[in-house]
């Protein structure tokens, strides 16, 4: 574990005098270690060895654990063994369920991506390489806890058992779409599954989750909230609002920053990830701040349970930075080969979350390559069958949507005269 606070002041020699000044000022504009065509370089990425980071008591004061924002909580080692203080108690059945959900998520992403490429949907966003975060956290939380996700947490819905058919309906904007064709693909919503309507505006859900958690606490409820944003999105005001309100009111909420290294074409340094890890943002608000290996299913589970226990015990919010990697393009509108080294994904030092959980299960003696392959095939078949079923209800291209009449509904609870007349004008 590297705690940068304990590093020597290695730059001290440079400027001891009080008033040394540069002849001219210069602006520093951050650059990633590698651009397209350059050799991959992850040497700046701060890692800790699996098992190396300590686990404070759930009720420890936030100011006693600043080091955790700079370390990296990891449980799985390279051989698939679970080691160290953060090893969670998780029965193999639960792990197997998690593995299945991750595989379903990945298979679903693959099919929808292809569908978009075939013109059947307008847009799609994969979460490839980041499946452990959503799936493991869904498992670590109660099903009644409320989730305020970004567009890259489809794994939450899948792990909570939301029908993939409906997700496909949403992607295709067809008659199966519960959102009646109103939203772009991937902007799911399910009140029943405690999954808040995904916004196309980055960051807004972070403070909303805090508000929800405040309401739960005000109501003497026992449910907590969780929210997810990308590392790029931390630069929005909503991030600051969320941390401030969460700190002031000790709101029962888990605030997750998914640091997948990229925000479209901008590397995490453009969001301020070079000067300090995103987890460290929590320190200044007096919040516990954990930095975790986001590709380590067990580590993600363990920190989430820890944070949830804290929240449920009226000890307030936790900020969690999940260190992961966006293996694919930002979305179907993106081509990452324009701005980053082509082999970055394959050289990502924290591996693939599915591979790593598989290896762990095998090491545990509960799984095998053969069973894994069988499961993978089963899941692919399932998703393919669902896709056929979904497409029978239409695709964007085939244009079998709800009646355009519905376009005028739900602007308000009741349609006002404007909308009524406009609907007439529109001829529906």
């Amino acid at each position: 574990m590297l705690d940068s606070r304990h590093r020597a002041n290695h730059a001290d020699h440079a400027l001891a005098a009080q008033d040394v000044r540069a002849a001219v000022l210069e602006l520093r504009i951050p650059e990633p270690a590698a651009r397209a065509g350059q050799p991959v370089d992850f040497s700046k990425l701060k890692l800790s060895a699996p098992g190396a980071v300590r686990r404070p008591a759930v009720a420890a004061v936030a100011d006693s654990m600043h080091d955790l924002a700079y370390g990296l909580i990891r449980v799985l080692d390279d051989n698939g063994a679970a080691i160290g203080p953060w090893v969670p108690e998780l029965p193999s059945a639960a792990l197997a369920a998690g593995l299945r959900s991750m595989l379903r998520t990945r298979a679903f992403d693959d099919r929808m991506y292809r569908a978009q490429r075939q013109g059947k949907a307008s847009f799609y966003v994969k979460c490839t390489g980041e499946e452990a975060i959503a799936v493991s956290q869904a498992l670590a939380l109660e099903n009644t806890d409320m989730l305020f996700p970004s567009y890259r947490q489809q794994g939450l819905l899948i792990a909570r058992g939301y029908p993939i058919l409906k997700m496909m309906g949403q992607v295709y904007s067809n008659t199966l779409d519960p959102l009646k064709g109103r939203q772009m693909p991937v902007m799911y919503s399910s009140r029943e599954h405690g999954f808040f309507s995904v916004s196309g505006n980055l960051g807004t859900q972070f403070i909303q989750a805090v508000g929800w958690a405040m309401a739960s606490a005000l109501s003497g409820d026992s449910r907590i909230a969780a929210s997810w944003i990308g590392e790029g999105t931390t630069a929005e005001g909503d991030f600051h609002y969320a941390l401030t309100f969460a700190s002031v009111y000790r709101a029962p909420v888990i605030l997750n920053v998914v640091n997948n290294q990229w925000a479209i074409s901008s590397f995490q340094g453009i969001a301020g990830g070079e000067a300090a890890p995103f987890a460290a943002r929590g320190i200044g608000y007096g919040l516990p701040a954990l930095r975790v290996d986001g590709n380590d299913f067990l580590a993600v589970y363990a920190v989430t349970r820890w944070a949830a226990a804290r929240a449920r015990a009226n000890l307030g919010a936790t900020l969690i930075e999940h260190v992961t990697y966006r293996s694919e393009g930002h979305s179907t509108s993106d081509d990452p080969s324009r701005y980053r080294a082509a082999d970055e994904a394959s050289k990502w030092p924290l591996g693939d979350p599915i591979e790593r959980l598989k290896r762990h299960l095998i090491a545990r003696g509960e799984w095998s390559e053969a069973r894994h392959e069988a499961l993978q095939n089963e899941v692919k078949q399932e998703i393919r069958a669902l896709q056929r079923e979904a497409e029978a209800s239409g695709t964007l291209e085939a244009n079998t949507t709800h009646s355009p009449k519905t376009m005028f509904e739900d602007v308000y609870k009741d349609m006002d005269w404007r909308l009524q007349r406009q609907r007439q004008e529109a001829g529906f």
Partner: protein
Amino acid sequence: MTTMSMIQAVNSAMAVMLSRDPKVVVFGEDVGYFGGVFRATEGLQKTFGKNRCFDTPISEGGIVGAAIGMGAYGMRPVVEIQFADYIYPAFDQLASEAARIRYRSAGEFTVPITVRSPYGGGIFGGQTHSQSPEGLFTHVVGLKVVIPSTPYDAKGLLISSIEDDDPVIFLEPKRLYSGPFEGHSDGAVKSWSTHPASEVPEGHYRVPLGQAAVVREGAEVTVLAYGTMVHVALAATRDSGMDAEVIDLRSLIPLDVDTIVKSVSKTGRCVIVHEATRTSGFGAELAAIVQKHCFFDLEAPIERVTGWDTPYPHAFEWQYFPGPARVAEAMRQVAAG
């Protein structure tokens, strides 16, 4: 029935709702222990406890964002933005979120929040304590926009707003908090006590959203106004001796288009008055609607009497404020036209 000023009526509406509905919660900057810089929430924390009425960080975006989350939980937050001029940091949460969540979730999640804020000039607040931003919010589909002009309406409309299942921007004309200001900057300050609409029931009642009030019937010209300008329009009517029909819109969205059209069809002449800057203010929308629906009845161009297209200047408050003289002049012009 009791006599209330507008600020007391606003306070009473919140008190009534806090006691009737455990889901109602009131918060904002300085609204808790202190009771608000205009005293709108005075006594609420003491009566209902800190869990029902509390202070927030100075973070309008945070206040509205948190309220939206609470609304999704099932509460009915009533938040105060200390001055309408400070609502802009919350613009994204209002326009992109509060206004859109019902639609984008196909009705699964709703945002039953009320955002109260004092607006308008007349207190030498300069450009950052005098703005009238209602026009902006009327362009954001999904929001309702309500502006009372009397204590009675303030309480009844605020109760309706809090009970409404959609997000409501509730703008309070700060110049009317303590009396029915008619725009004569040199006149004595009137108190509400002698005004009939200061008779306010202590308990629960509603003034429905979307119903304008014809506060004065008349035949010569229709004057459309809301908030402070209703009183200015009445003063202009008196000062000019004209037989104006003065309509208090009360709610801008939803708009009571029928009452407006009926009146202008009758008078054939229309003056629109607001304190906000002219260009793309709500008066533009009213003019567009009136010319469309009353085209063949109109006998003169619709006139707008508004704040100038400048920031609200501190020292020239009364040269900026669209007072009775300017309104009367427009009425005469329209009547002659």
